[in-house]
């Protein structure tokens, strides 16, 4: 409880910053929304003239894309800055500050850097999600909407977990940019349904870099599809579990990391 209030205080500070530079904030959000909107259009246009790819229609693929956009935005709010700035902090020694507060360092790190830069991504993602549901004529009961919210939080946790796991190695390695690039490279696979790839790639995206749980598996429950390839259909419900596991792994790695941390001093 104490942590929740404290977190909220830090979030309020970030909102005040955004308000102070309102014109810049709005211009930036607008530019990001246009860029994200163009990506949604391109995804739709890729499928448009063919009508469908395998068993997936253009709007179904757009739904997959929107789920990933929302997931990325959710992770962006909470986890992007804390962990992308980690390398800098560890290298120049400012990470010391995290250890000197009477708080869990992990919590302090995360709460310091809530980002207000992802509202545009989130808005475009939600808009694309709603448009696809309407175009596909899918009616959601209250229970299904609740499940959708749980799934989206889970997808956000998956992306958060990846942000953590790809940035925390900075405690051992000096330069980790390459690992971050790898993350976004693997993410690019889930732009389309993973059944378009060879089975071994789908296996990799399910069990090793589980990006398939961001959209491919959970979406099939709402779309009432059964394009599960060689995988058990129950994976459609596993997104929140995968999200929690990835974040726990990230947390454990972080704990190992601070034990290994030697201040560079300054």
């Amino acid at each position: 409880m104490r942590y929740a209030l404290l977190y909220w205080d830090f979030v309020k500070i970030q909102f005040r910053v955004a308000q102070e530079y309102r014109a810049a904030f709005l211009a930036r959000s607008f530019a990001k929304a246009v860029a994200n909107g163009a990506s949604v259009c391109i995804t739709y246009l890729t499928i448009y003239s063919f009508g469908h790819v395998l068993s997936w229609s253009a709007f179904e693929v757009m739904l997959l894309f929107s789920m990933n956009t929302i997931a990325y935005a959710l992770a962006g709010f909470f986890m992007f800055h804390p962990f992308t700035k980690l390398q800098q902090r560890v290298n120049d020694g400012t990470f010391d500050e995290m250890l000197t507060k009477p708080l869990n360092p992990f919590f302090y790190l995360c709460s310091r850097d809530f980002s207000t830069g992802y509202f545009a991504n989130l808005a475009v993602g939600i808009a694309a999600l709603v448009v696809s549901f309407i175009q596909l004529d899918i009616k959601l009961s209250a229970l299904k909407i609740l499940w959708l919210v749980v799934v989206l939080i889970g997808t956000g946790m998956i992306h958060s977990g990846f942000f953590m796991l790809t940035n925390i190695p900075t405690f051992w390695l000096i330069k980790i940019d390459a690992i971050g690039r790898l993350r976004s490279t693997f993410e690019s696979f889930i732009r389309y349904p993973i059944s378009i790839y060879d089975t071994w790639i789908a296996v990799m995206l399910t069990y090793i870099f589980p990006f398939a749980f961001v959209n491919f598996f959970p979406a099939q429950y709402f779309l009432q599809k059964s394009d599960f390839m060689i995988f058990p259909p129950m994976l459609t419900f596993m997104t929140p579990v995968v999200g929690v596991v990835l974040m726990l792994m990230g947390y454990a790695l972080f704990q190992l990391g601070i034990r290994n941390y030697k201040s560079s001093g300054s």
Partner: protein
Amino acid sequence: MYLAMWKNSFKRCLVYRTNTIIQFFTSFVYLFVTVNIWQALYRNVPQLNGVSLAQMLTYVLIIQVIVRFQDLELSRYYGERIINGNVSIDFIRPVSLKYSAFATLAGEVSFQILLFSIPMLVLGAFIWGFVLPAALWQWPMFLLSALLGALVYASIEYLMSLTVFWFKTYFHVQCITGALFTLFCGSAVPLWFYPDWLHAIANLLPFRFVIFEPAGIFVGKSTFEHAIFTIGLQISWLFALNFLGHFIWRRAQLIVTVQGG
């Protein structure tokens, strides 16, 4: 002298070799994803709008090369120099800011194309196949139109970079022009597959001359007459954009404020 700037910047790129290897891997995965989606789309479809899978893959591979022109980011070059105040030195130098920016960036782009895009193209051609142009005239016409496309792109970037004098940042303009470019240049989806109304909008904009039209000549979707016509239009756009750029540049010189000390 601009040649020397070009050479310097080319050499500078040679230094960052590990970076290039990672970038090669990343770009290869993107290419892999793109090829996979087209192969899946074409499953059980022999051709669509007169385009076969083999032609489509050739299109995807050849634009690996010309899409590099997008790195002629004059707006970033200008933006950084205006924001950190270096532009004050550029104003008193006896060289044109526009052409030295272009020479430096062209060095980077040539490096990318020679040591990055062409190997990627060859690798892709080995894995997925590649259809060379059927007619001999397609080669010179493709090269000419790709080169003009690069100049059209640089001119668009030049116009964007002049807006930095007013807005003091290049992020937004770059983001929005980038979005328009992605939508209308045909780098992700060739304009053959666009709905008619969207294709009509794309026809009114200069973006398609950078990627779509040169690639169209290469894969043989353009007749000779159409190719000539395209090149004519590219030259007209080039004149129009540069005339506009010259006009705005004269205004920009009057309002420039130098930041930093």
